[in-house]
């Protein structure tokens, strides 16, 4: 069944069709949510909330965007809300986190690649992080990223440029292996 057929069945109350939709889209949504929030318990909760919100609003989905983009919008909004809730905590601990990371980075062999990527993403301000996740990890175009985040394309490009500089600096060991 195609995603549109699954959606139609789900709208008529078919549990299995809805579950199939969840299974189809859980990976890209995990990338968005965990890319922004990190691989933590809150990210699992936010991921579940994304699909519950989608369930509640699927009758309003009009097909103007793809289903993946629609779910990504919900995921971005919920993830950024969750980040704002944690913001006060992060602002207190960010300096400490950064110092710890820099010490650990000096011996990057201790880090698995995935941990290095997670930490690099965590060091980005959340506005840049959401752009990196959409543009570089999910492959959305600049225009699509701007629409999803409701910001001008110029802002996407400037934040992306700053984020790239930071990531290229931190992920240098991994990038040079690729080059």
């Amino acid at each position, binding site marked *: 069944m195609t995603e549109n057929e699954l959606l139609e069945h789900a709208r008529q109350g078919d549990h299995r069709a809805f579950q199939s939709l969840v299974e189809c889209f859980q990976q890209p949504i995990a990338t968005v949510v965990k890319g922004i929030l990190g691989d933590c318990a809150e990210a699992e909760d936010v991921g579940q909330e994304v699909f*519950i919100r989608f*369930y*509640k609003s699927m009758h309003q989905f009009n097909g103007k965007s793809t289903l993946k983009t629609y779910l990504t919008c919900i995921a971005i909004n919920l993830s950024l809300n969750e980040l704002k809730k944690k913001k006060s905590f992060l602002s207190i601990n960010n300096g400490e986190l950064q110092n710890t990371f820099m010490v650990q980075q000096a011996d990057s062999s201790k880090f698995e690649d995935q941990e290095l990527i997670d930490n690099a993403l965590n060091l980005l301000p959340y506005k840049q992080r959401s752009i990196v996740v959409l543009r570089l990890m999910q492959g959305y175009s600049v225009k699509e990223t701007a629409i999803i985040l409701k910001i001008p394309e110029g802002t996407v490009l400037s934040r992306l440029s700053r984020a790239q500089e930071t990531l290229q600096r931190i992920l240098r060991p991994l990038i040079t292996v690729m080059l």
Partner: protein
Amino acid sequence: MIKKLKKLLIKLYDNNLSHKDQEELPNGFAAFPELAQEKEELSSLIQVLQKRNYSFQPGFSEKIMRKIESVSYFAIPDPREYFEAQLNLLFRWVAPAGAAVIIIFLISLYLTQGSISVNAITGIDNLTFNDAITLSFYNY
């Protein structure tokens, strides 16, 4: 020139290059090696980031289904209940606006007339209840 090439580079990653752009880009890379280097580094960064495969814990979809079923989201909403809910929602917006208008009216009345009595509202002195009834019928 370099600005134009940077724009082309963005278009390249958007998969939005025209035929003419595709011909122009290699020449640009040849003329500006630093741009070619930038492209390589960006491509590598994208590869590195896309290597990070995030996934939810096993049983994720089952957990969602259990949650949805436990709060009976699957129940098809009754049109009457839906209408009432919408009406309630509308009332929450209309009621404070109406109350605000009434309060503003009473304040302005008090400021202009020095009172908020029935006489001040109707603009007629010494109006009795019977007069008010008679006046309202008189209009018909």
